[in-house]
């Protein structure tokens, strides 16, 4: 894979926030790459640091948080080193963003057409008025908003949730970005509308060739749309692999637990596997492996409690796992998951 293929390269990213308790590390050494035309999935539960990582990449961290280390190289430039003015030239231009809640991301007192036009005008200040307008109508057509001429003049409250998300996507696509960062783009939407939006994202990506980072907690969406996946937990990446490998033979005990705790539409029922305990408090991150207090594989081994495992290549190509005993995972998973079904049969 040549370097020219790389759209985004994040190296050892560390994000810290100043809270009342002192400085807290929200993202702890995250590294990943996004290649051209690729859909990269980032999954994790709330508090795993997945959204903060994206905000750091875009330079949109809240005022009390900052990038404390690492690089964010986007199309050859380190975004972590740019000032606000330089960042503004990247954001919304070659780097498009779609957020979860389309209601709060749109300005309620501005017409939708004007807001999309603004996204164009910021980066093309000399484009004539008629040109901008034509481009907005074109974008609304691209995202399949019916009656774009009429919709141009409407306010966000006149749009349904799905339509608002379409408008947001139009805005993100305004300047033909090389990379789209979609943070839970369909979480606030109903499942039939989610299907519409995901189909739309696939078709506009096919047309524009943009890469995408899809941040979500929905493993179904990840399975259906992404090429490679990173699993985040407690501010770190625990496993990263091609989507087929990850779902077929998860190597990290957390990934195993996550996949098995999912009730599936087509699978047989029984008790769901549930990961014991609670997600870690980032203000008091566990020593060693961040997952060890909830892990079924560690069996009290001192290594897990004392030494942080590095995200290392396993046996299969292109897979990285941060677990000292990743070799044992498949065997452990077989026993642990079977035990659960046995227990369930006893209870029934």
């Amino acid at each position, binding site marked *: 894979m040549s370097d020219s293929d790389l759209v985004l390269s994040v190296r050892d990213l560390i994000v810290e926030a100043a809270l009342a308790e002192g400085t807290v590390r929200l993202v702890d050494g995250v590294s990943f790459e996004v290649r051209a035309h690729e859909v990269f999935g980032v999954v994790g539960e709330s508090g795993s640091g997945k959204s903060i990582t994206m905000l750091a990449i875009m330079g949109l961290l809240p005022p009390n948080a900052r990038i404390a280390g690492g690089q964010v190289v986007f199309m050859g430039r380190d975004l972590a080193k740019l000032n606000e003015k330089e960042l503004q030239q990247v954001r919304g231009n070659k780097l498009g963003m779609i957020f979860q809640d389309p209601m709060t991301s749109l300005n309620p007192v501005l017409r939708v057409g004007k807001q999309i036009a603004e996204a164009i005008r910021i980066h093309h200040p000399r484009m004539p008025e008629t040109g901008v307008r034509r481009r907005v109508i074109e974008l609304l057509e691209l995202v399949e908003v019916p009656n774009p001429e009429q919709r141009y003049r409407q306010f966000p409250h006149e749009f349904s949730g799905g339509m608002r998300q379409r408008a947001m996507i139009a805005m993100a696509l305004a300047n033909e970005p090389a990379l789209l960062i979609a943070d839970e783009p369909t979480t606030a939407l*109903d499942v*039939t509308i989610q299907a519409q939006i995901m189909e739309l994202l696939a078709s506009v990506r096919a047309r524009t060739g943009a890469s995408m980072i899809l941040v979500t907690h929905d493993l179904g969406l990840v399975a259906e749309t992404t090429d490679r996946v990173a699993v985040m937990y407690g501010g770190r990446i625990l496993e990263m692999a091609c989507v*087929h490998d990850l779902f077929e033979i998860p190597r990290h005990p957390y990934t195993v637990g996550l996949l098995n705790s999912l009730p599936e539409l087509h699978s047989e029922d029984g*008790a769901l596997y549930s990961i014991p305990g609670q997600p870690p408090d980032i203000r008091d991150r566990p020593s060693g492996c961040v997952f060890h207090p909830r892990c079924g594989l560690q069996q009290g081994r001192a290594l897990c409690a004392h030494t942080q495992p590095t995200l290392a290549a396993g046996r299969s190509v292109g897979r990285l796992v941060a677990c000292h005993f990743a070799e044992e995972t498949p065997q452990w998973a077989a026993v642990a998951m079977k035990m659960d079904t046995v227990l369930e049969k006893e209870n029934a």
Partner: protein
Amino acid sequence: MAAANHRELLRVEDLRKHFRVSKVGGWGSSQLRALDGVSFTLDGGETLGLVGESGCGKSTLGRTILGLHDATSGQVLLKGENLLTTRIGRKRQHRRDMQVVFQDPYASLDPRMTIFEIIAEPLRINGVFDRERVMEMLACVGLRPDSAIRRPAEFSGGQRQRIAIARALALDPALVVLDEAVSALDVSIQAQIVNLLKSLQRERGLAYLFIAHDLSVVRHISHRVAVMYLGKIVETGTRDQVFGTALHPYTQALLSAVPVPDPARRGREHRIVLKGDLPNPLEPPSGCSFRTRCFKAREICTRVEPPLADDAGIGHLAACHFSAPLAAPTDKPFVY
């Protein structure tokens, strides 16, 4: 996974709840039919899953049954007695039999009360306070005894939902309405709560009205399922009937829209992508309310509202003129 006892616990008949909504501009008002003739039954020890998208009336149904909304018309019979016409005194007795767990465990617990007081409150209100009972409830939802003296802020979302469940079960109800009770939780925590709810049901013979938009969870926990669209039940049957051989096009679309967490199956099944949004509930379409988004709609659908009918006589009801299971997947996509 048969229900513990098959006695009918709850019967809802032709329940209607209309809201007056003032028109834009402030002159006059129109009527929103949040519940438009809903009927179903629920046996003791059974779970009825109620699914549908936002605005379909599923939460209004739960609240109207609980008496949090006054019904416009219809009947809600709990153990044979109509709750909408009983005297206030009797009503209180019935309310002990019906409890609720809401979606947001951050908003549904009073932050200033200790966990002990939160669980004790329903007992005190009904004059049956018993210290032992409170501690027993804590234990049965898997919380440590020392949690009792702490306050909600010290607990995570999953633990708070355990507290809300303990409070709901304190009075030993027969029916618990679970209104999106696991929707706000992360999957690993959601699995813990779903398992807890199932084991409590086995132990105590509870009936659940499980309201949720997540079809996978509903399938996992329910014995029977009802699908709602614009204030009406459009399909109902056993879990396997509705999820296995859905008859109504809306149910079929809903099921096919759920992402499958298995990349190997990507692209295998054809997805039915519905066009457009939910119609304005203030001006529902004529005839069948789903026809504006339906891939099977014909001329008759605009004129005649299809009744909820059991065509095959097997307790699997659907409200569609063309109700039929989806044909085996073909290579051709659906044509609208």
